């Protein structure tokens, strides 16, 4: 349950219920507990109180592995870091993975199987004839799950897949181009040019970490050109050098124009001058960089356009060099792209006796025209297994709480195919069941243990001696030799003409929400309060429209509009977004949940306008004002750089203002940070990593609207006069001449001997003078006892090495001082120097592009010291004379 400002305002109070739950299920640790010291009766091996243990495992995102090392304090998972041994993750994570521990302890997770108990459930499922059983899952990469599904299919059951942000278009395109389904991997690191047609390569998604790293590597070693044509601003568009806003329905013409310039097919008429110029430039860039470029086309376009892109990549020699096709990592269901539709049709026809929905919420996420709800209620036995008692669970006869990935024994494959054995760090917290045990029960093996089932899958692959090999792959978190095999396929050169939709009215484009995705993360307060990368909105979804359209219709940000398409209407708050195509309205999936919603979460249900045949673009829409207005909570009200360009670029040698204060002396360490603005894609992984590391509370929408969000690290977004978008992560600058230190009347913020600007909570009396003196606005004040309004179960989530701040206290980024102290203490005990790179801050560790570098400025060989000598190096607001030790490398602008 949400820790929200709503709770404090007295409108909602569900804490009493939760307290009861916590008291029943989880022992408290109040004063009595801290008075006592209770050692183990029999000390388990490998646990040292105060020293975290680390385990290699993986989180799941849309069926794909996100390999991690998980930190466990006395059996409590508290923090995840990317697994450095995984060739896919290389130590980085995305924002969703950073929030996984918060999901594990989420108090809204369902607590009990219903309506009966596990024994009752196994009796019921064993009575189902396999021939009448249907199983609905999301994307499946798990070899064990695939093995069980194959066994069930063998016995007569049928398996279907539904993924709201699915890969159907890619699969269809692959069949068109190659005659079968293959995966396409982009080696961005070897690209000189990347041409993107409506494909958010660098945005959130199961493969984000690898792609952002590849892009960053390419940027480090050269000046690759990124050209993007898209209807609505995406992360990829934001970092592009050439970006063109084009209505979604016109994009296939652009792909065809590029193909025609490269000698594939004919150009169709109807392109505007700007579109022609962009397509010619893109084709030229691809043509002069054979084998060093990529043309990628996103799922919103028709499969024909994607298939044409495959042919283009092959024609210019990219295939096999920057574009690699492999055997599919995800298992392809029998009905392929039509898997879900086949299920709905059979259910509606009454030919399904029982359906098991394993980890999904199709009642909420199914396209409106399929009418999944009516089809589902016709099924005599409906079983749902999921983390939450959601919209789908409500319609089902049975609901089984499903184990979180940190409680699971399973296996998953990363998007590059490498498998990770998922091992539990904790027994299921809320009496949840592991997925393989549920499927085993369906197969009549109700006593089977998930660990054994997973071991059985790997026994033939690992060979003998099994036990040591198994222990090794568990320990490493990667199974060697499991990467996807390269597929030798040739794109057919036949003419692929895409259907072009009619052009009446407005066009709707659908996008997964950047922080709650398809709605699966909507119950997670951390992700609700995480500012969306391009709007900095929290707790809400908006309908994004072009500023010109907003001006024409007289719509202000937050005005509620009614959007009609295909005979259905929804109402949504409007928001003008720079870089939006003129007649395009962007709708974000994931909001408007009917169950397990958080109080304060706004938004609308975009699925109600979504059609199965065109899930991403829908023409002929209407939009009108309703006269209503809602308040939206954004963390950055001003996003235009106009007149403040000096913020993000080096200035001609600013005369450093003189200071009355003596200079500091740093005899040992001088910690510092450099952030490369050329590599940042605004993905937010650092922000959530900081939240997880530093016990940062969620405050709720109304508090965010008052400017009281608590994130120590924010990522600012700016649009400049040229239409370009810039991201700038802003932690505490740890200034040499820190105004806050001079302002504090009680010396609660002081300068340390290693350069840290220290915030001492137990001295702080809350005058907030420091915050008003801070030119970077990085200080956060506890206006209420925010820590106390976090869910009770989130106590177990807290980092024991970081103070939980009280009401009335100022707080801010500490450069993760707990990690610095640990590194120093370990080095001291082992009588060695603190090596550069032996530890880093939470933000730097999570960052997929490695844009954040932390280290000792006193060490001339440290990476951070080297970056300070880069010609792009600058200090933000240097003319103020604060002499910050968090500094930046400016973005490279091609002209």
């Amino acid at each position, binding site marked *: 349950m949400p820790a929200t400002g709503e709770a404090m305002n007295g409108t909602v109070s569900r804490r009493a219920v939760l307290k009861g739950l916590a008291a029943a299920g989880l022992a408290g640790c109040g004063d009595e507990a*801290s*008075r*006592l*010291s*209770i*050692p*183990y*009766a*029999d*000390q388990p091996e490998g646990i*040292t*109180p*105060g*020293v975290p243990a680390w385990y290699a495992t993986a989180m799941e995102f849309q069926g794909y592995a996100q390999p991690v090392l998980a930190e466990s304090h006395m059996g409590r998972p508290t923090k995840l870091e990317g697994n450095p041994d995984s060739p896919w993750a290389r130590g980085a994570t995305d924002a969703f993975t950073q929030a996984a521990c918060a999901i594990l302890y989420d108090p809204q997770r369902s607590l009990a199987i219903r309506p009966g108990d596990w024994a009752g459930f196994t009796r019921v499922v064993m009575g189902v004839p396999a021939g009448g059983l249907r199983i609905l899952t999301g994307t499946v990469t798990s070899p064990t799950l695939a093995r069980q599904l194959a066994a069930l299919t063998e016995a007569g059951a049928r398996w279907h897949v539904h993924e709201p942000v699915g890969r159907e278009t890619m699969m269809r395109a692959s069949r068109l181009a190659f005659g079968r389904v293959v995966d396409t991997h982009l080696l961005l690191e070897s690209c000189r040019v990347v041409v993107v047609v409506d494909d958010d390569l660098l945005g959130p998604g199961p493969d984000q970490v690898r792609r952002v790293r590849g892009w960053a590597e390419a940027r480090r070693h050269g000046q690759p050109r990124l050209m993007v044509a898209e209807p609505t601003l995406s992360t990829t568009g934001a970092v592009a050098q050439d970006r063109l806003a084009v209505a979604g329905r016109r994009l296939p013409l652009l792909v065809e124009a590029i193909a025609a310039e490269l000698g594939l097919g004919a150009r169709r008429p109807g392109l505007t001058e700007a579109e022609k110029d962009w397509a010619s430039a893109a084709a030229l860039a691809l043509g002069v960089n054979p084998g060093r470029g990529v043309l990628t086309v996103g799922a919103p376009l028709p499969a024909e356009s994607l298939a044409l892109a495959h042919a283009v990549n092959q024609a210019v020699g990219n295939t096999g060099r920057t574009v690699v096709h492999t055997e599919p990592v995800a298992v392809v269901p029998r009905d392929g792209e039509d898997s879900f539709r086949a299920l709905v049709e059979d259910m509606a026809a009454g030919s399904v006796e029982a359906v098991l929905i394993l980890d999904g919420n199709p009642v909420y996420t199914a396209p409106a025209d399929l009418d999944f709800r009516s089809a589902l209620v016709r099924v005599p036995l409906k079983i749902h297994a999921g983390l939450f008692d959601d919209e789908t669970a409500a319609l089902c006869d049975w609901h089984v709480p499903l184990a979180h990935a940190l409680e699971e024994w399973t296996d998953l494959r990363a998007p590059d195919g490498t498998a990770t054995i998922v091992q539990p760090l904790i027994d299921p917290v809320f009496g949840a069941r592991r997925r393989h045990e549920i499927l085993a029960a369906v197969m009549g093996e109700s006593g089977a243990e998930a660990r054994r089932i997973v071991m059985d899958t790997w026994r033939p692959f690992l060979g003998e001696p099994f036990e040591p090999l198994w222990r090794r792959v568990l320990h490493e978190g990667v199974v060697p030799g499991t990467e996807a095999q390269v597929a030798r396929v040739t794109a057919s050169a036949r003419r692929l003409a895409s259907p072009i939709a009619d052009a009446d009215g407005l066009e709707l484009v659908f996008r997964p929400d950047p922080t709650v995705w398809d709605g699966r993360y909507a119950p997670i307060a951390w992700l609700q309060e995480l500012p969306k990368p391009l709007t900095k909105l929290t707790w809400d979804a908006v309908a994004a429209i072009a500023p010109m359209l907003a001006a024409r219709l007289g719509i202000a940000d937050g005005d509620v509009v009614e959007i009609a398409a295909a005979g259905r209407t929804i109402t949504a708050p409007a928001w003008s977004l720079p870089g939006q195509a003129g007649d395009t309205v962007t709708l974000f999936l994931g909001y408007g949940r009917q169950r397990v919603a958080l109080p304060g979460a706004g938004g609308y249900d975009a699925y109600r306008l979504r059609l199965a045949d065109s899930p991403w673009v829908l023409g002929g829409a209407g939009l009108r004002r309703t006269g209503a207005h809602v308040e939206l909570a954004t963390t950055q009200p001003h996003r235009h750089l106009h007149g403040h360009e000096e913020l993000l670029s080096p200035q001609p040698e600013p005369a450093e203002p003189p200071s009355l204060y003596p200079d500091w*002396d*740093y*005899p*040992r360490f001088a910690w510092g940070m450099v952030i490369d603005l050329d590599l940042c894609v605004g993905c937010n992984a650092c922000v959530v990593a900081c939240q997880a590391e530093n016990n940062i509370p969620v405050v709720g929408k109304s508090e965010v609207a008052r400017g009281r969000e608590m994130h120590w690290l924010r990522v600012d977004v700016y649009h400049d006069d040229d239409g370009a978008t810039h991201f700038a992560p802003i932690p505490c600058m740890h200034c040499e001449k820190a105004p806050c230190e001079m302002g504090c009347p009680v010396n609660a913020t*002081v300068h*340390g*001997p*290693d350069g*840290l600007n*220290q915030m*001492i*909570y*137990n*001295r702080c009396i809350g005058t907030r003078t420091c915050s008003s003196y801070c030119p970077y606005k990085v200080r956060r004040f506890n206006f209420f006892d925010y820590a106390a309004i976090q869910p009770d179960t989130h106590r177990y989530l807290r980092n024991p*090495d*970081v*103070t939980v701040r009280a009401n009335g206290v100022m707080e801010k980024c*500490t450069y993760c*001082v*707990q990690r610095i*102290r640990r590194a120093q*203490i370990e080095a*001291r*005990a082992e009588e060695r120097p603190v090596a550069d790179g032996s530890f880093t801050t939470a933000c730097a560790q999570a960052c997929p592009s490695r844009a954040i570098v932390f280290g000792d400025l006193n060490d001339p060989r440290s990476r951070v010291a080297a970056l300070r000598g880069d010609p792009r190096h600058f200090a933000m607001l240097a003319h103020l004379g604060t002499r910050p030790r968090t500094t930046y490398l400016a973005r490279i602008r091609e002209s």
Partner: protein
Amino acid sequence: MAARARTILGLGVAALAVAGLAVFALVFRPLAPPEQPVPFSHAIHAGDLALDCRFCHWAVETAPHAGMPDMETCAGCHWPVATRPVPERLAWVRVAKLPDHAYFDHSVHVAADIACASCHGQVAGMERTRAPDRPWTMLFCLDCHRARQTPIHGAGRLTNCHACHR
């Protein structure tokens, strides 16, 4: 009237003084050892038997916490393996506790050759374990941190706030 007021004032001052003394005595008295689930004697174990502190407080060199011995450690000496009962968890009452906002790390202090007794007192002579005679105030820590600070540490390295608070 004025005399009466003076008397009342005088009595009030006296009462305050007495109360103040009482509070002072309560705060700074040597704390009586609390009742423990087992009448464990450090005097026997650390004194008479001269067991090294690290025999039971096993994590003191490697972890922030010194580590409390599990019951198997006790049973290792007290019970022959064949007749060993299933051990029970014991809830010891802490005698030594720092406030939550102070982050103390045993390992680094041991590495700096600080003897256990310099903070914990003469535990080896305690029949019943009690709090150290000198209370753990910030000044108690600072006395040592100021004295041991050398130029190698850098000015203020041991006395800066983030050394203990974060």
